[in-house]
């Protein structure tokens, strides 16, 4: 789950990280009021959970409250990469001398958090990582000990930070670590962390991504979830505990197990089709869950065929079959359905579906071929 810039920065501030004065506004007149309070140049920043806001015109500088209102009006009317801008952050404009990158994420390979810093801040850090990895200093953090003071100093040394900033930088780095750990983040970054004209460190932009699996520990953060970022069908799916991702193809698929679901998508493509979604109904799915999954897939008008691929283990073929029948009683559809049931109670499942006019398949390859054919018909 991603946090907005303003949420991330507020969270950082709790841990002693200096952030610009500012507030979030949902209307242009609010933005004007905030600009009046801040008295001076302000930055109006679109709060959307995608990168490239700046290039899209979502970050603008206003010299007066009136201009702030005008620009906020303009930004609040925008969509950036398809996402509507519902809020803007109005921040005091900083006089930036230097831009630094500072972030913490999980290093899967090292199985430790890693702190990364670069004197080439302010831009896309993944681009820096690709094109000049030597510009990024990396420091693994022992998850049992946490970030140590000397490590923060080593990072400061690595990016040639002037010595008079080491102390505050150390506090910021420790604060970022505590924010990361205290929220079960998978990413916590300040980009840019700037040195201002009056020689202060300031976290001008911030980003946090939280571990969905740990949100039970952070109900306050869970409440910050922005649903705009997800397709309505994905929100609906989460309600039912389904793992669903909408794609652009025309062959819907319902599979049990994530790896098998990906494989089903891949094999559809392999035989010339395009999957309309990723959908894992999980282990031991109930008929209600199956019915919900079916509704969600068929809600997509692009879907021209639907492939069920169920390898029964914990999931029982008869239960899945009953779910499909239950859903089809409610939903009227002409979409051809291809079904492959293997494993636990597969035969019973096939019997239940005997009257449902479905195309059956023995193998996965066969099922994929038949689906591609059905979608093309």
């Amino acid at each position, binding site marked *: 789950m991603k946090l907005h810039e303003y949420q991330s920065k507020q969270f950082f501030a709790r841990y002693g990280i200096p952030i610009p004065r500012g507030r979030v506004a949902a209307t242009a007149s609010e933005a004007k009021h905030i600009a009046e309070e801040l008295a001076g140049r302000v930055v109006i920043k679109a709060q959307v959970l995608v990168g490239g806001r700046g290039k899209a015109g979502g970050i603008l500088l206003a010299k007066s409250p009136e201009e702030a209102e005008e620009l906020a009006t303009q930004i609040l009317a925008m969509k950036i990469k398809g996402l509507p801008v519902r809020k803007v952050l109005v921040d005091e404009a900083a006089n930036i001398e230097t831009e630094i990158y500072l972030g913490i994420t999980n290093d899967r390979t090292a*199985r430790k958090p890693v702190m990364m810093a670069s004197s080439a801040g302010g831009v896309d850090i993944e681009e820096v990582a690709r094109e000049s990895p030597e510009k990024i200093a990396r420091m693994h953090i022992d998850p049992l000990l946490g970030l140590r003071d000397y490590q923060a100093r080593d990072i400061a040394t690595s990016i040639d930070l002037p010595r008079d900033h080491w102390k505050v930088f150390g506090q910021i780095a420790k604060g970022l670590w505590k924010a990361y750990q205290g929220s079960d983040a998978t990413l916590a970054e300040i980009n840019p962390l700037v040195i201002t004209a009056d020689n202060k460190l300031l976290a001008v932009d911030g980003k946090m991504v939280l571990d969905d699996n740990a949100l039970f520990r952070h109900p306050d953060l869970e409440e910050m979830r922005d649903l705009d970022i997800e397709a309505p069908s994905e929100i609906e799916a989460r309600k039912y505990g389904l793992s669903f991702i909408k794609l652009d193809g025309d062959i819907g698929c319902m599979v049990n197990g*994530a*790896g*098998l679901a990906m494989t089903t998508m891949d094999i559809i493509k392999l035989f010339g089709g395009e999957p309309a979604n*990723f959908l894992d109904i999980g282990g031991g799915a109930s008929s209600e869950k199956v019915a919900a999954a079916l509704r969600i897939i068929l809600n997509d008008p692009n879907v021209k065929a639907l492939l069920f691929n169920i390898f029964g283990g914990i999931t029982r073929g008869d239960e899945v079959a009953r779910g499909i029948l239950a859903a089809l009683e409610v939903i009227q559809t002409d979409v051809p359905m291809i079904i492959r049931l293997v*494993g636990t109670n597969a035969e019973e499942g096939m019997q239940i579906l005997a009257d449902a006019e479905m195309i059956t398949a023995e193998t996965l390859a066969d099922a994929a071929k038949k689906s591609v054919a059905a979608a093309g018909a």
Partner: protein
Amino acid sequence: MSILIDKNTRLLVQGITGNEGLFHTKNMIAFGTNLVAGVTPGKGGEWVLEGKVPVFDSVKIAVNATGANTSVIFVPARFAADAIFEAADADIHLIVCITEGIPVQDMMRVRNYLDQKNIRLVGPNCPGLLTPVESKVGIIPGDITIPGTIGVVSRSGTLTYEVLYALMLNGMGVSTCVGIGGDPINGTSFIDCLRMFEEDPNTEKVVLIGEIGGTDEENAAAFIDRYMHKPVIGFIAGQTAPPGKRMGHAGAIVEGGSGLAVDKIQALENAGVKIASHPEEIPELLG
């Protein structure tokens, strides 16, 4: 005939009285696993499955009473890290964690702790292990394998069953099947299993089933290139997965251009691994 588990495995089930724990305990016993004990705090002294399996309050007590040497964990995600610590501190040397959805920072602490000791964790978020005829630890269906000489290692669940089933249909037997799990931080890597299969006299060929996310397959390719003498057949799921999205498994995500299926396939092919274009092609490539 196997790696990690065999006839000498004395299994303990953590979370035995839950729905899942009880269901799979029954299946593991039916398979023939030497399942000696269960643990559910607060239910010590009870018995489950008509008096077949004694339940204890803690792993330590269970180990003392039954000599269990392996544990399989079915407890809910928010308690699972603690269950792993408990098993590790009770000197269980093989811990298999089935639970899905453990917070990743919990797993980093667990993994860094276990690395100080000499304890193997398989999983979490995995189907466990199965050695045909001898022992099954986890949830892999017991009726889709026959004994043989093919080692199977996979990050996936049902996709693994699909492969096992295809092997069986083609009369091909398995030495041990290990599901290492779909989480970004887990206990056992592809390399760990490849090394054991390479050393296991009863394994002749290995099937490796990877997926998008991370670099475990790339690391495996480097290992295969340098150290493996036995043939390896591979399959990688997620070629059509969009970047930046988690494909069900917490670890199945392409991030910052890393973790792509195409790179994994390339790395494995460079190491001499034959890659199947879909699971049912695997028996043919093993042929």
